[in-house]
């Protein structure tokens, strides 16, 4: 048999196989195992404390999936490679991120989440019952201390077309419409002790000082068409804050952190946080960043302070060089008055903050020095020619004078001519009186006596420059 004769048969067979052979259906098992193994997940479940199994028609909910890691036994939220699906014939929808949109009609459906080879399912009821009013402040026991933030899930009363009542956490269509009213329990006036804000379908209680408050939830009842106000929810804000301190915003170890940086350059920004140490129920200490619920102040206008966008740190910008400013922070009732707008956006005053009688209030402060901008380099020209530090420049043509122009470059990339600045020191280190001589009354100007090499050392704010000039015919 001739190989050359067989070869076309081989090639033809391979060509057929090119289009015919593959085992795509067999890939699923191995691909799924790699998905789970990549994140070391051995089991999955829906987070029981946050999941909703009864949802109103037309409402939305973001489902999430948790996974148990094999090696560390940590439970983590799975955000990648989760495949969400609903039972067949479901009118509701769910997208690849677990965002569920309930249908316009009541239905019972099965929601499934697949992660690799692992599958978890849950039954969801889309209810036609409509919202009436908020009946509970939170769906679980709630306690909070001053200067803390805590999410709540208010509970509402829903009624269906047959008059059947459902008591369940309010859904996304309602929670964003609730207006929260907070009053002091003892005098019934609007309270500055706490504020409840809603963002992204999540209500959060922020507290600023200790005391007893009364909370009411006001929202439009779909059932009656009227704005309904809930009953009074009495809530105590604890004062188990043991200490408050200032730390650098970059600190991670909040137990041992301190404010190490107490000096900033003019026009530069320093970020710091306030850290509160709380007494936990089990007696242990809990250190947490309480910047967003602290009251901040500054004693003068030498610097400007403002909370960052997420209110997790205070930014200080130096305005006047060679000055200082005391930054103060307090948690609790302070002497200075604050307005409601400060409560909602974060309390930052243009005066120092001081605790009122030191009852249920703790404070801390730190002096911040504002220094001039650091000089990063000097630029020098001689008779209009650029000089390089330590490298000679020949000025030919028998120059009568050498005129230096000195420019300082600052750390914010700005620059300034400093030739006549009193802090700029000139010293001739080579060729003094022989090659050049300083011209009296004119900074940076030298009379040329003869041909040769002259060196002039320039010093300004810690930066040096050696100008080497060769005079030639």
């Amino acid at each position: 048999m001739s190989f050359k004769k067989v070869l076309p048969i081989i090639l033809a067979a391979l060509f057929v196989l090119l289009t015919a052979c593959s085992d795509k259906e067999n890939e699923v098992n191995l691909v799924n195992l790699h998905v789970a193994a990549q994140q070391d997940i051995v089991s999955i479940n829906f987070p029981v404390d946050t999941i909703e199994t009864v949802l109103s028609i037309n409402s939305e909910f973001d489902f999430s999936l948790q996974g148990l890691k094999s090696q560390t036994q940590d439970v983590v939220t799975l955000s990648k490679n989760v495949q969400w699906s609903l039972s067949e014939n479901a009118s509701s929808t769910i997208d690849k991120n677990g965002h569920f949109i309930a249908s316009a009609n009541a239905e019972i459906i099965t929601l499934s989440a697949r992660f690799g080879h692992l599958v978890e399912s849950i039954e969801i009821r889309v209810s036609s019952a409509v919202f009436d009013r908020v009946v509970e402040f939170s769906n679980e026991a709630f306690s909070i201390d001053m200067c803390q933030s805590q999410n709540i899930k208010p509970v509402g009363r829903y009624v269906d077309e047959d008059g059947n009542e459902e008591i369940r956490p309010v859904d996304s269509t309602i929670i964003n419409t609730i207006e929260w009213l907070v009053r002091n329990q003892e005098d019934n006036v609007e309270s500055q002790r706490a504020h409840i804000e809603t963002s992204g379908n999540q209500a959060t209680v922020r507290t600023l000082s200790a005391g007893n408050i009364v909370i009411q939830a006001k929202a439009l009842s779909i059932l009656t068409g009227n704005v309904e106000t809930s009953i009074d929810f009495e809530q105590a804000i604890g004062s188990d804050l043991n200490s408050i301190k200032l730390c650098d915003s970059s600190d991670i170890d909040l137990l041992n952190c301190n404010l190490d940086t107490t000096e900033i350059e003019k026009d530069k920004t320093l970020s710091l946080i306030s850290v509160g140490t709380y007494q936990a129920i089990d007696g242990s200490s809990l250190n947490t960043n309480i910047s967003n619920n602290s009251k901040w102040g500054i004693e003068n206008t030498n610097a400007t302070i403002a909370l960052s966008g997420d209110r997790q740190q205070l930014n200080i910008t130096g305005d006047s060089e060679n000055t200082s400013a005391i930054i103060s922070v307090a948690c609790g009732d302070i002497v200075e008055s604050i307005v409601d707008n400060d409560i909602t956006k974060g309390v930052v005053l243009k005066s120092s903050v001081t605790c009122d009688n030191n009852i249920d209030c703790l404070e801390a402060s730190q002096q911040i020095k504002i220094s001039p901008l650091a000089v990063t380099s000097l630029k020098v020209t001689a008779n209009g020619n650029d000089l390089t530090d330590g490298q000679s420049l020949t000025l030919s043509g028998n120059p009568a004078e050498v005129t230096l122009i000195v420019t300082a470059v600052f750390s914010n990339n700005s620059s300034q001519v400093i030739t006549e600045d009193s802090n700029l020191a000139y010293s001739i280190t080579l060729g003094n009186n022989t090659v050049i001589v300083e011209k009296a009354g004119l900074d940076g100007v030298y009379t040329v006596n003869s041909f040769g090499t002259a060196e002039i050392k320039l010093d300004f704010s810690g930066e040096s420059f050696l100008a080497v000039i060769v005079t030639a015919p």
Partner: protein
Amino acid sequence: MKLFLYFSNLLLLTIFSSTIANAGVFFAIAPAMITVDTDNGSTRPLVADIRLAYEIEKHQIELAVMSSVKEDKLNQLTVDIPSITSVFYRYSPYFKDRLKIHVILGVSQIDVDSIYPNTADSTDSFEGVSFGVGVEEAFISIPELKLKLDWIQLYRGDQLNINALSLGLRYEF
């Protein structure tokens, strides 16, 4: 397996029936790293790669049998390759040079064992077209002995690719 029997018989027939000059039989052995590659992770078990080939001028037909040497793990996932059987056609445009470059085309069957906690152990079998490139260079002192390096995509799927990288020796009888 019929496919492999067919090609194996074809190989033997060509070996024993050919009378053409510049023809020869090769035996090759090499360790090979198999990459089981998915979008979400890869495992790289090792196999022993044994091949028998027949060459005539620019053309070679080769039977490859590989079996497990070492499994690989991705966290708790253990992947092993108990067997790979392939038939390759290799084309070398510069067959008279000491350094040869081969274009490889063939078919392979790959068995993959996987073990994962809380899941039944499984064996998946993949059959498909294989392609790749290889280089080999003969030793000056022993021209029958060649050092060879092959990269072959044994299986190309929608979400899964299986590649082999082998470095070993070929001997021409």
